């Protein structure tokens, strides 16, 4: 009887211990447990799995309970080019410190290094992803953090390359401090609400550094989007805030620092657009405030399509762009005021810092080039300069109403 009672107490304690205190399971090629999948199998919710340095090839690993998975001294999990590596189907999972390589390219499945499926409260921290089809993939998930990861893709053709960080139908996600390169799109959002994206660096991607659609109310700040084949494209979205990002060196045949298509009620502030084919393209955009940005040495600083209206451009610096602004419309429904234009030749007699003569940012040549692309070969030609001067005196083919009535005499120092 006493024996029975003791047994009972022992099991009770054991049970209690298991539920109240999580335990750590060590996975290592040298230890008793050599496989991550096995560790997950024997683990209980809330356990920590510590993966020691080593090389693990286990195919698809499914995490179906809340776990903390930590890599110690850089363990490598290799998908060997087939299928998915980690599939998270449980909320409250954290993965950190792993190197995850070679999820399989597929035309049917979006195989990822780590996929989060319909979960919440997950954290993917400080991992390295090399040569994955998709690196981190979130579907129908929320309240999660993707931070501090290094993500390098295969840099193959666009068609057999997936995205670095891919979100579909998610909300309340933080993406910060990641480095993403050589993927199709660096960061991809579709139907995302309330994302916070900051301090990331997305460069050398095959298509867009950042690409989102139908993702309202997201904020992007202090990211760097650099040398992506097509720059950054954002579409069909409202309530976007973009602040203090850098869009740099995105040039090529159809490349944009920032392509805005059907964006409304958004704010683009204090960003830098440097050396892009087109700094910002606005197509079908309305009520966007473009304020205090630097647009420097772009081919076209801004291309403003006719279907855009009620946008406001103020206190921006337009410095040494080949074209400040081009538009395909003779009308103007947008507002330009108080910008600095480096090629403004007016004067300021009353010394109030505002040029006394309005500035016309659309030159005749930019209109010509818009109609006849080949005319671009005459860029910087003296004939073209003469045309521009003549047009500036008597506007005939440039939109008459499109002026900055109060051009700033000096570059605007908005960083202070």
């Amino acid at each position, binding site marked *: 009887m006493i024996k029975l009672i003791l047994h009972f107490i022992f099991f009770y304690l054991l049970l209690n211990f298991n539920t109240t205190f999580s335990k750590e399971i060590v996975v290592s090629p040298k230890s008793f447990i050599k496989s991550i999948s096995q560790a997950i199998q024997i683990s209980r919710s809330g356990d920590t799995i510590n993966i020691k340095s080593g090389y693990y090839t286990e195919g698809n690993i499914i995490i179906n309970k809340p776990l903390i998975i930590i890599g110690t001294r850089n363990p490598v999990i290799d998908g060997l080019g087939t299928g998915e590596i980690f599939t998270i189907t449980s909320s409250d999972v954290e993965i950190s410190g792993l190197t995850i390589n070679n999820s399989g390219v597929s035309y049917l499945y979006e195989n990822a290094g780590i996929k989060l499926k319909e979960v919440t409260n997950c954290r993917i921290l400080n991992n390295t992803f090399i040569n994955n089809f998709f690196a981190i993939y979130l579907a129908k998930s929320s309240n999660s953090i993707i931070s501090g990861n290094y993500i390098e893709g295969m840099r193959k053709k666009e068609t057999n390359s997936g995205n670095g960080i891919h979100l579909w139908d998610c909300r309340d996600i933080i993406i910060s401090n990641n480095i993403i390169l050589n993927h199709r799109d660096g960061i991809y959002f579709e139907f995302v609400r309330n994302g916070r994206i900051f301090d990331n660096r997305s460069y050398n991607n095959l298509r867009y550094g950042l690409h989102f659609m139908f993702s309202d109310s997201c904020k992007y700040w202090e990211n760097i989007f650099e040398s992506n084949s097509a720059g950054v494209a954002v579409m069909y979205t409202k309530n976007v805030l973009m602040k203090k990002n850098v869009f740099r060196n995105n040039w090529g045949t159809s490349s944009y620092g920032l392509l805005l298509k059907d964006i409304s009620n958004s704010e683009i502030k204090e960003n830098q657009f440097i050396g892009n*084919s087109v700094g910002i393209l606005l197509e079908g955009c309305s009520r966007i405030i473009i304020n205090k940005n630097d647009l420097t040495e772009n*081919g076209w600083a801004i291309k403003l399509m006719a279907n855009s209206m009620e946008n406001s451009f103020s206190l921006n610096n337009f410095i*040494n762009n080949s074209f400040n602004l081009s538009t395909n419309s003779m009308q103007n429904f947008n507002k330009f005021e108080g910008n600095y234009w480096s090629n403004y030749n007016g004067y300021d007699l009353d010394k109030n810092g505002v040029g006394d003569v309005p500035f016309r940012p659309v030159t005749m040549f930019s209109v010509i080039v818009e109609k006849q692309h080949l005319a671009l070969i005459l860029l910087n030609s003296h004939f073209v300069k003469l045309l521009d001067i003549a047009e500036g005196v008597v506007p005939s083919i440039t939109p008459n109403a499109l002026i900055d009535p109060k051009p700033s005499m000096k570059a605007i120092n908005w960083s202070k």
Partner: protein
Amino acid sequence: MHLMNKILLYEIHNTIRNKWIIIYSFFFFFIGYALFAFSGDGSKAFISLMNIVLFIIPIVALVFGSIFLYNSREFIEMMLSQPIDRKSLFFGLYLGTALPLIFSWIIGITIPYFLFTVNYNNTEELILVIIIGSLLTIIFTAIAFLIALKQDDKSKGLAYSIFVWLILAILYDGLVLLIIYTFEDYPLDKFIIGLSIINPIDLGRIFFLIQFNISALMGYTGAIFQKFFGANLGIVISSFCMILWVILPVYLSLKLFGKKDF
């Protein structure tokens, strides 16, 4: 060639003491000063500089070259009564005009570069400007000689020089634009590239834009030009055209000089 060197030496002596050559040097010095000291940004300064080079150098070489040759008529007569062959005398005179023009503006522009730029980051661009400007000097001095040898009337010759400049520096591009508009329904890329190669000023301008990657910024159309002018074949073809522009007027002037009555 031995005789040519002697003539050349004296011609250079003569030309570098010419006040216009000195003014020319100062002109570029002040341009360089204004650009490098006040425009903080290097590449912007160089694009402006290139524009000035493409505008000023051809007209200066044309006007200076033809006036110089007209003023040398009696001296040529005198030199030809000395034991010297016409070819040596021609090259002596030609290089004696072109080289000081080249030195003059190179010195003018290089000094402010080294005085007023901070870290000499744009030396490559400077060298490119110098090469293009020097080639233009060589070409347009030869054209000036050709005009001055063909046309004995000084004022007519000057008018022709300015006319040639107007055509190549300005009107030609208008013609290109007209062609683009007139034949907009046809695939014109190659034809337009061809037209641009024919004019040395345009060629200089485009070459510079390509080197500055400006055309790379220019989207699809820029990429077409980049593809041609940036590729080996394009560089070979445009260099060939540039060399042809150097050789042809020099050769024709030399022929004319050999046959001419002084």
